[in-house]
């Protein structure tokens, strides 16, 4: 080409010749450095847990996880909190979001703002507020039934106060997942068609809207579960032994086991998030 049209080519030819090679070099460098940075800590953590200075390779640390004091209790507590949080956050947000779409569109922006607000408030400031309420509450409410409520939500076997706090933390993510899900289906047409065919409102919600929202609900649920399983700040400052708090507690005495549990809890979280992203991919290819 360059020899055929010499009058135009000189300006264009050098970049055209250099371009395909140069980007490949920087791209390779970027990808290799990124791969090292992201893979080495994962590999190193695994090596750290299986390498015993005296005996060499051993999986003892992973065996010790299950016999360690408090493992089962804290993991079950975190899972239980996660499931109850998912149930509560969906029961609260789904009807509100459907109703706002169908009947009160003017409420939509305020609802979005309110549901996004928890992103602005760092969890540690939120727990500073909560712990103050829990500390002051008994002083002011001692003679009312609220006093018993404040004691009851702090039951260490199942601290409902954590569920309430986690619902607030999960709101922005749940709102976004459900909003995307509701945006992908025509809620108004679906519900009006169902109503015209004689369906009651509960029937519309449970048999028409929810089945169409499956992937949005699943992603909201997975995100909430991942959030609750990893949440440390609020549980630690309110002194409840959830799973992440337990990992932190044992790190002082058993370093190897605590890293092993970290790897283990990572695998759980990753499994959840991979399930979530594959559910999302199926949704995209389906629609």
């Amino acid at each position, binding site marked *: 080409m360059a020899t055929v049209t010499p009058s135009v080519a000189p300006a*264009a030819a050098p*970049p055209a010749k250099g371009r395909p090679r140069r980007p490949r070099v920087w*791209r390779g460098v*970027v*990808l290799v450095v*990124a791969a090292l*940075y*992201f893979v*080495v*800590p*994962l590999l*190193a*953590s695994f090596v*750290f*847990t299986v*390498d015993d200075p005296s005996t060499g390779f051993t999986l003892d640390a992973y065996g010790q996880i299950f016999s360690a004091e408090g493992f089962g209790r804290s993991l079950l507590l975190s899972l239980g909190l996660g499931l109850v949080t998912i149930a509560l956050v969906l029961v*609260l947000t789904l*009807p*509100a979001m459907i*109703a*706002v779409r*169908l*009947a*009160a569109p003017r*409420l939509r922006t305020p*609802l979005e703002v*309110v*549901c996004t607000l928890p*992103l*602005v*408030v*760092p*969890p*540690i*400031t*939120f*727990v*500073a*507020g909560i*712990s*103050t*309420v829990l500390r002051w509450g008994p002083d002011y409410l001692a003679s009312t039934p609220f006093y018993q409520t404040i004691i009851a939500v702090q039951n260490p076997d199942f601290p409902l106060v954590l569920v*309430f706090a986690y*619902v607030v933390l999960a709101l922005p993510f749940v709102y976004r997942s459900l909003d995307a899900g509701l945006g992908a289906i025509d809620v108004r047409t679906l519900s009006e068609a169902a109503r015209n065919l004689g369906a009651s409102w509960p029937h519309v919600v449970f048999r028409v809207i929810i089945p169409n929202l499956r992937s949005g609900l699943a992603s909201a649920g997975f995100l909430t579960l991942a959030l609750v399983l*990893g949440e*440390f*700040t609020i549980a*630690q*400052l309110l002194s409840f032994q959830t799973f*992440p708090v337990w990992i*932190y507690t044992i*790190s002082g005495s058993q370093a190897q086991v*605590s*890293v092993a549990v*970290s790897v283990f*809890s*990572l695998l759980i*979280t*990753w499994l959840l998030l*991979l399930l979530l992203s594959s559910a999302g991919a199926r949704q995209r290819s389906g629609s």
Partner: protein
Amino acid sequence: MTGNRTRSKGWLAAVPLLAFIALIFGVPLLVLLGGTFTRDGSVSAANLTESLQGAYLTALLGSVKISAVVAVAGGVLGTFLAQAIVTSRFRALREAVLTASGVLANFGGVPLAFAWIATLGNSGVVTQAFGLSDHGWNLYNFWGLTLVYLYFSIPLMVLTVVPALDGLRPQWREAAQNNGANTWQFWRYVGVPVLAPTLLGGFVLLFGGSFAAYATAKAMVGGSVPLVTLQIDAALSGNVLIGHENVALALSLDMIVIAGLVMAVYLPLQKRSARWLR
């Protein structure tokens, strides 16, 4: 008639959610605000003044500094990584990096700290293998914490900018080249201005993530790096002068104000960049 009835019902269905938020989210924030301006039972700005002095101010500035460094470094590195996979011809590479980013962006808290301690801590695998301690390596300082925060910040940036980079149409580049622009001029006058809202939005997200981070710092550096989250923890745990407990609330208010100002930049930008993602 039916329309009116549905409308009034619609209000009712949103009431439980709004009431819940008001009670669980609103009341603690109001108490926080009230407590900040109360000392020894009377109205006073003493807590707020104290929270902006001495060690507390150092911690607040330390948090802002590490968040800014992470936001800029993570933003730039994340953008380069994103550009590397967007321009790559291998579709599998792109999918793998995006999936891994989705997972790693959510990797934080205590496990992240322990993974890095096992890698580059004093008895970490890499530290031991290369004898880094002899060369003065120390993970438990400002730059060590920055390195760890980048681990979840870069993937978050990748997830944020990839859609925007996909939106950069090849035609724009061809048009620029036809007009005689070189690569630098294309990015300077076309690429970066188009991407600017997304990039700034990404910086804000990264800043907020590092600013609010507590678990990783607590498990990793304890108190050796001054951070406002660690100071709030100390003050809440009773590690303050008697009668000064509400300093924790004042520090929290400082944090919310800073996070709020930064997010206030983000929200309108998100709307603007949404235009390019279509």
